[in-house]
């Protein structure tokens, strides 16, 4: 029964990972950028909510302020840094976003110090409430809420990509930016929109991280690695795949931790490497992310 519980908790954790990862996946799919600052941006979002919550605002209200702000930050990030770095070649976005990761996490450290922070004290009884399923399986309401939000957000993104004008422009640009330009898509506006969505969802994930557990100035690196692992395990270019990947990662970590508390991270990494190995065996070469698989294939 204790194992069933670990699986259940792992699935719920996987929802959080999917939420964290969907922005990373979107940016990789559309702009072919792996944003190494993704996790740091999530943690930045968590700190912003934390500051507002400390000033008496409910974290939920704070999110209403923080998410648009982070969206604008994502838009600016694309316009000021990423757009320029994309022109300079394949390696430059990696170098620039890695530099950004160092800047953001150290600025956060400068401002907030090394302390672990949590949003837990600001969400009332939601932090404690749970449903008892059996003696050994309890489901925290907060964890369930995060999972539901993650699934809803992924579904909304999927619908948005398939049915809206901007969504179609995003998919077209992901497929072939030059041709999309020819038929009148403004690719730099599309990229900026994708970055805005990605950073806002990262900030939302960061806030949930703060509610579920705790974070510090340097938590961004771990969050980036988790997000990336979820994307790769689930198969690049598929939002539902990212959810599946997040769940596999979460379950692996929880089962690892049940065996030995030190194995939480290690078990996740091992599953990630195994998924990579499997993919290499199946395809022979590294898969270049195809965003077309996101909606096109199973439409």
């Amino acid at each position, binding site marked *: 029964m204790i194992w069933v519980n670990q699986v259940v908790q792992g699935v719920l954790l996987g929802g959080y990972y999917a939420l964290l990862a969907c922005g990373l996946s979107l940016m*990789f799919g559309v702009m*072919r*950028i*792996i944003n*190494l600052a993704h996790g740091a941006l999530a943690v930045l979002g968590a700190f912003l909510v934390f500051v507002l919550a400390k000033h008496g605002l409910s974290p939920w209200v704070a999110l209403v302020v923080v998410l648009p702000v982070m969206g604008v930050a994502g838009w600016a990030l694309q316009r000021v*840094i990423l757009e*320029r*770095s994309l022109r*300079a*070649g*394949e*390696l*430059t976005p*990696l*170098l*620039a976003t*890695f*530099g*950004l*990761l*160092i*800047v953001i996490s*150290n*600025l956060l*450290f*400068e401002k907030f110090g090394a302390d672990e922070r949590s949003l837990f004290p600001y969400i009332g009884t939601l932090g404690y409430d749970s449903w008892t399923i059996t003696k050994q399986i309890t489901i925290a309401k907060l964890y369930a809420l995060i999972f539901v939000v993650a699934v809803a957000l992924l579904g909304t993104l999927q619908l948005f990509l398939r049915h809206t004008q901007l969504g179609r422009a995003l998919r077209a640009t992901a497929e072939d930016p030059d041709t999309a330009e020819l038929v009148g898509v403004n690719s730099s506006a599309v990229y900026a929109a994708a970055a805005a969505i990605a950073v806002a969802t990262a900030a939302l994930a960061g806030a949930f991280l703060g509610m579920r557990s705790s974070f510090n100035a340097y938590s961004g*690196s771990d969050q*980036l*690695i988790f997000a*990336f*692992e979820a994307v*790769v395990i689930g198969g690049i270019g598929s939002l539902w795949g990212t959810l599946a990947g997040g769940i596999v990662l979460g379950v692996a970590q929880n089962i690892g931790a049940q065996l030995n508390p*030190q194995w939480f*991270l*290690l078990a996740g*990494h*091992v599953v*990630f*490497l195994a998924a*990579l*190995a499997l993919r*290499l065996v199946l395809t022979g*070469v*590294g898969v*270049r992310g195809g965003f077309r698989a996101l909606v096109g294939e199973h439409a």
Partner: protein
Amino acid sequence: MRVRRWTRVSAVSTTSVVLLLIPLAFVPAVLSADAVDKLTTLFIYVILAAMWNALAGYAGLVSVGQQAFFGLGAYATIRLSQHGVGVYPALVLGALLAAVVAVPISLFMLRLRGGEFAIGMWVVAEVCFGLVILDKSVGGLTGTSLIALKQYSPNDQRAYNYWMALGAAAVLLTTLFLLLRSRTGASLQAIRDDEEAAASVGVRVLAGKGIVFVLAAFGCALAGTLWLATSITFQPKSYFGVEWTAYMIFMALAGGLGTFEGPILGAIVFFVIQDQFGDNGVWYLVGLGAAAVGFALLLPRGLWGTLQERFDLHLFPVGYRLRRAAT
């Protein structure tokens, strides 16, 4: 037209750098202890910068996980020394062991491209870290120290560390120089510029990348073992920290990615910054990160690359030059 490799400037500069090794070898006998320690640190930075540049600047492999080898080298040295291997041989052997570990890793990781390789390497570093802290004989997270060094007096340690670091930097730079001048060097740059095109004209892409990957792993591991020799303590978290890669990226970018001389200049710049501002802790790291972004965006060729472009300066001839033949 004639193809030339050496110019008068490059012949003079290469010879003078080689000759510079002679006075450098006598530094421990002449300069103060503090100066010797600082130069040792500088040599370690030069190794790290040159190795990261070999990966990214010549093979197009951006790795954010080179701390894996830095840490593994130090870890292997500790274990070898615990098993009775002499402490200075253990520094080299430890690095060699890390390079051996890099071979299977390379077979796997080199099939990934771009950002996937970058973060994949980071995960590899995290896995290495996770496994090392499970090992009780190095004290888990708390770490341990290279006790065997205590058999040497502080002065001897200082001199030996210095000579080891100088020798390691000289050997690694020479190896890289010869590698880049060889056929492999040309094929590597072809891979970096366009992997598919290179493969289509018969370049063995994986083999070329593999050589650089293992060389860079060895170099970073040797830097790690030398760092262990100078600092004596081994704390897994600091050896496997991603900040090592941040330093490497900064040095290579600031100096000039894809130039032979650039990373050496970058290491000197980094060393001076570290010496002047290292005490400012966090702001210093913020500055490094911001400078890396700035160099990537505004001065992508780095300091040396920009100078090279303006003055057509090549101190170490790793490329080919076309000259109109004398009639």
